[in-house]
């Protein structure tokens, strides 16, 4: 039986453009947290995520019913993200030390958002821990799916996640107590 996402994508493929809203709703968290660790910049990741959906719409006929619809979208996102990384590496004018680059934290996040816990995680966790936390808690992926994505043993993912939350809790309590 087709999943809700697959039904939406098939509907989109058949010309019902309104289904793109459902596709976005069902996958945007997963797509964004998938792109962010690759790009490491909130703004760039946002651009690529939006482009992902436009590309998905434009190339909807390339989706084959019966295949994994989320993987199809993630493949588009991954290709766009990797192309962007490649492009950035080529462009010597891109200065990662400029004022737009992250001064604190693993990723260059959008600090104007009211996301204090995520901002704290960005500051106190290591990159490997942060990506797992974001994929699991924000992206909604299962530990096993994250393990496949990151090519890590399942146990490593679960223990890193567990350890990251303990670290985050400690930092949260410290920050809270200091205030």
């Amino acid at each position, binding site marked *: 039986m087709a999943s809700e996402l697959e039904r939406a994508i098939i509907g989109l493929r058949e010309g019902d453009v309104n289904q793109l809203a459902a596709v976005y709703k069902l996958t945007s968290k997963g797509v964004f947290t998938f792109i962010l660790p690759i790009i490491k910049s909130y703004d760039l990741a946002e651009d690529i995520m939006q482009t992902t959906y436009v590309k998905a719409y434009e190339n909807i006929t390339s989706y084959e019913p019966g295949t994994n619809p989320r993987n199809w979208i993630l493949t588009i996102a991954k290709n766009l993200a990797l192309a962007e990384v490649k492009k950035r590496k080529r462009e010597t004018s891109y200065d990662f030390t400029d004022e737009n680059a992250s001064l604190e934290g693993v990723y260059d996040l959008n600090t104007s958002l009211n996301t204090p816990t*995520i901002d704290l995680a960005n500051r106190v966790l290591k990159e490997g821990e942060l990506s797992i936390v974001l994929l699991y808690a924000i992206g909604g992926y299962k530990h096993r799916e994250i393990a496949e994505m990151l090519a890590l043993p*399942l146990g490593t993912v*679960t223990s890193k996640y567990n350890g990251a939350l303990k670290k985050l809790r400690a930092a949260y309590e410290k920050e809270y107590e200091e205030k």
Partner: protein
Amino acid sequence: MKRNEKLILKKLRREGDIITPDVLSKVYKAIGVDPTLLSNAERVIEKRLRGEAKTFVPKANEAVMAIAGKKPFAGLRALMQKPRFVSAMATGMAAIILTVTLVTLGVNGFFNVDTTDTSDSSSDAVPYPIESEREAYSIGALTTNLLLDYGEEASGNNLFYEAIGNETDGEIVVRQISPYLEMIEQLIAPDGELSVTSMASDRKGYALKDIIQASDMLGEELDYLMYYNEVAGEESETYRFVGILNVDDRVDNYAVIGSRSVEDNQNLIKFIIRYDDGDYVISRYIEGENETRFGFLVYQDGEIVSESSIRLEVQDDMIQVVLTFQSDDDLSRYKIRFREIDGQPHIDIDYHIRIGNRVRNGHVDIGVIVDEETGESQYALIIKPEGGDEEEHHEGRGHGHGQGGGSPHN
């Protein structure tokens, strides 16, 4: 953890790819170790993270929203049947118009506006020429944007006007045509014929780029950039396009979605430009042999607030615009041209308004007043009803400045 438990865990992890998470979880719990078990404090942190997800993950941008939220064009016909529309006039639509120039004619029966009534069409007028689909796209996007921009700036005001019949000619005229003035300026300015330059895109995600250059009555130049992709539809001679429109290097872009096709041997271009989820303008352009006509629907908060059509013609080497609003049996029609008075540019309008049994005819002269100190400009409208008293009204002017607080000057 005891050594034997660690060994079991190690073995399980090694075999993890053949054990489902559920089974693994049961095994972990069976041996008294649950790596996913978090303390209450850590659960709170996890809950906080999940709670921030909605804020953290970007919302769909305009381009995605325009695709995702756009109402199927097939539904337009039904929407237009709503009686409330009718009187609506105004507004927004115009923009689209542009789309323009494409084609002429058509629209019969699509909008409530009576497109078969050509009584205002000058016998020696010819359709405004559009050279290519790309030019049509760009002009359509530009005009649509002007209407949308007006609605955006005037948000919260009584923007889209529905004539109720007991007002003066001036009140009706001002409210109906104000949203269109900037667009009209750019369409009829004698020295500012729209030019469209097409080239390969230099922006990621889009294959095509058009530079649209326009100018207003005072000669001020305006630049629009449109990036888009066009893909062939499943039916022959049908294409979809998705893009963005940037106006004068502003930070925000407008999403542009549309299609072009051939129906009943007529070229047809449909457009939608969105400001946000509920505020957008839909245009429909049909190219015929004798005229170029556009129909516009303006939506605010998801409701249609205005419905109009525009016909573009060329007469005596000058572009003239016929703007029509129709609702049920009520009709307003404005025939608009450029005129120079004492060396100053003016918009010259003849109007015919029929609301119920009352018919009003008259003339409107619109000039531009510039404050030499601030540089700000205003429209000065002088409405001259046949057999009635002259009325004067000043209306804010400025690209993207909306209606700018008009005021009567009697």
